[in-house]
């Protein structure tokens, strides 16, 4: 419940933050603290120093970027929900974010914090995979960009180096008329997903020409479902959805815990994928 002692400082600028990170003295970045503080309170993480980047204006906000959007890493869930641009272009973000934590958590927690923490049961990574997000990262050594599918490397492991900071997330425009849906079942105590699916589908006339499914809470890392490709060329008939839903867990080492044993979680995932597909298709124009 009580974390080990740590020093705390506020970054005065992005450059200041990068300088501190470059020292490699074990400093952890903190923004909303809603991923980091709980693990510190459980003493699963014991960073000697925290550097608060929540106040850096250049890391906050949502803006139009090409035909998509750019989201600053320290943008809070509440700011995501309040963005008309995101609601219009990426309604799946609001659909998912509405159910993250409670109001207090959404007021403080940030998208970048959740992504950099990379909890395999948190919702955001699956959205980023489904939306084909690009993560822009920066260190004193320079800038680089990584695709979401390369960013998440394992449970609580990402492509971020020790001295790197996540600047922003760029989302490319969705295919025209795409329907999206996010669905998850959460464990009653923690609120973390036992299985969740982010789905994006688009049709040309009646035929599906784009289908992406990303899962969280199922395997040990958020992952794209290969079987989604099998929907392309179909008309989204119930049999096609059922087939893809059944195959959605293929190749995934389904996790097991005291609340959701693997066989149950496998079944749950298949149901959630089918329902999310149905919902997304209904919404596709």
């Amino acid at each position: 419940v009580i974390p080990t002692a740590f020093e705390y400082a506020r970054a005065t600028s992005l450059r200041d933050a990068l300088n501190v990170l470059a020292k490699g003295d074990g400093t952890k970045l903190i923004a909303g603290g809603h991923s980091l503080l709980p693990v510190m309170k459980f003493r699963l993480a014991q960073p000697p120093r925290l550097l608060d980047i929540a106040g850096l204006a250049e890391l906050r906000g949502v803006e139009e970027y090409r035909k998509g959007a750019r989201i600053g890493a320290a943008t809070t869930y509440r700011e995501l929900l309040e963005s008309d641009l995101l609601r219009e272009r990426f309604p799946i973000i609001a659909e998912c974010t509405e159910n993250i934590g409670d109001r207090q958590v959404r007021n403080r927690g940030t998208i970048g914090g959740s992504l950099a923490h990379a909890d395999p049961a948190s919702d955001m990574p699956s959205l980023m995979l489904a939306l084909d997000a690009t993560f822009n990262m920066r260190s004193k050594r320079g800038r680089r960009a990584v695709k979401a599918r390369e960013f998440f490397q394992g449970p609580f492991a990402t492509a971020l180096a020790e001295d790197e900071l996540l600047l922003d997330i760029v989302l490319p425009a969705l295919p025209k008329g795409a329907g999206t849906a996010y669905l998850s079942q959460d464990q009653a105590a923690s609120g973390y997903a036992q299985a969740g699916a982010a789905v994006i589908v688009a049709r040309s006339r009646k035929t599906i020409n784009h289908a992406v499914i990303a899962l969280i809470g199922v395997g040990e890392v958020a992952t794209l479902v290969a079987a989604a490709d099998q929907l392309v060329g179909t008309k989204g008939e119930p049999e096609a959805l059922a087939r893809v839903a059944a195959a959605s867990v293929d190749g995934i080492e389904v996790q097991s815990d005291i609340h959701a044993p693997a066989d149950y979680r496998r079944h749950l995932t298949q149901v959630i994928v089918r329902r999310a597909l149905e919902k997304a298709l209904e919404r596709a124009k």
Partner: protein
Amino acid sequence: VKILRYIAVDDCGPHINPMIVEGQIHGGVIQGLGEALQEIAIYDDDGQLITGTMMDYAVPRASQMPHLELDHTVTPSPVNPLGIKGCGEAGTIGSAACLVNAVCDALAPFGIEHIDKPLTPARVWAALQAAKGKENVQ
């Protein structure tokens, strides 16, 4: 498990403060429903409690619980001058058993007669799978 409607009729004798009585019944019913649906203390082989924090032990929250419809009969107790009776745990006594029975009743067509509480989705699913397995054997 989705609770479609929950009606509780209690008799606590005359209500001196009806708001408090209603609050007590609410709290009691929810305590029982939490026990029936999601609260569980799990120990590992070494006797270590592994549902030891609020991340694992699912205390019921307002958003997870149904609306309650309450009504009362008023039968004064003959054994005290005010005619009052306890109401604090009145809701709890009935609600856990009532919910588990309701779920077993709903699952009776599948040949299910008993599921250990709490009726988490995983347990209800497992009971349905086991029932299906039996059918296959026949």
